[in-house]
């Protein structure tokens, strides 16, 4: 995932806070937020995940004019599996196994970030029901307009590989 411009918008923070059921007024009311220690509307701890909205290639969003693998008339719009562009939900694709954040600076409404993602470690484990579990890490650095590191996000995705003997 590469995001050239991820504007941290107060309305987006409000809707994000609602979606995780967080009623903390610091996410909703700038007048209240001024009276708090951070002194501004800040982003909830997992907010940078929503940078997917600003990634033009994010593969888990329907693209205008293109087929979508979710259901319409039929159970899926296409038969081919979409290519993963990494980052975002699945960490390195597949199911999301882990997510880690390191907060270097307070993220607040009005900031504008960039995000760059690099592949991290990969490893394998035997699954409980047989077959290999393949883990892959992706590391995303979010920087502000001054180039300062604000958040480091490490996602781990897991894919399963059926045993060669299964049919």
């Amino acid at each position, binding site marked *: 995932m590469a995001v050239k411009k991820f504007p941290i918008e107060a309305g987006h923070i409000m809707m*994000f806070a609602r979606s995780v059921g967080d009623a903390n007024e610091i996410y909703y009311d700038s007048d209240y937020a001024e009276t708090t220690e951070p002194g501004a509307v800040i982003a909830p*701890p*997992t907010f940078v995940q*929503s940078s997917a909205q600003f990634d033009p290639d994010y593969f888990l969003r329907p693209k205008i004019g293109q087929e979508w693998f979710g259901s319409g008339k039929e159970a899926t719009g296409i038969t081919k599996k979409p290519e993963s562009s990494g980052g975002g939900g699945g960490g390195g694709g597949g199911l999301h196994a*882990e997510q880690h954040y390191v*907060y270097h600076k307070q993220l607040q409404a009005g900031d504008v970030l960039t995000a760059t993602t690099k592949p991290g470690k990969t490893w394998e484990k035997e699954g409980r029901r047989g077959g290999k579990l393949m883990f892959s890490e992706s590391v995303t650095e979010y920087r502000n307009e001054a180039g300062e590191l604000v958040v480091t996000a490490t996602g781990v995705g897991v894919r399963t590989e059926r045993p060669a003997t299964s049919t």
Partner: protein
Amino acid sequence: MALKASELNVGDSYEEEVCRDLSRTQIVQYAGTSGDYNPLHTDDKYTVEIAKYPSVFAHGMLSMGMTGKMLTNYVGDGRLRSFGVRFTAQVFPGATLTAKATVAAIREEDGETIADIEVSTVDAEGTVVVKGQATAKLDA
């Protein structure tokens, strides 16, 4: 209100019910705000017929987001220094989740007083769905 090192002990804990009878609508809300529109989370027809799961299920990041709400309510706004989790079980609609933080250590780092916190979120049956760690800056 931030936590004070002078009033905090290793082993102290805090917990909060972070969702009750999780609705499909809340999962849709999270898809809309996060931008993760994977049909596994919102599209029962696709999820049952194509992906062969019993029903749609919550984004791992929704469980982590709800766990984060408990953490910021505990440690105060803008106090988290890190937060990381493993997703240990899928969360389906109807879930009631309780998130818990337990102080594992209190230490100094770069002139700040930091609490190491163990984090876990369980469903009504006691199954752990999210497990991880966080660090937070304390007042003296």
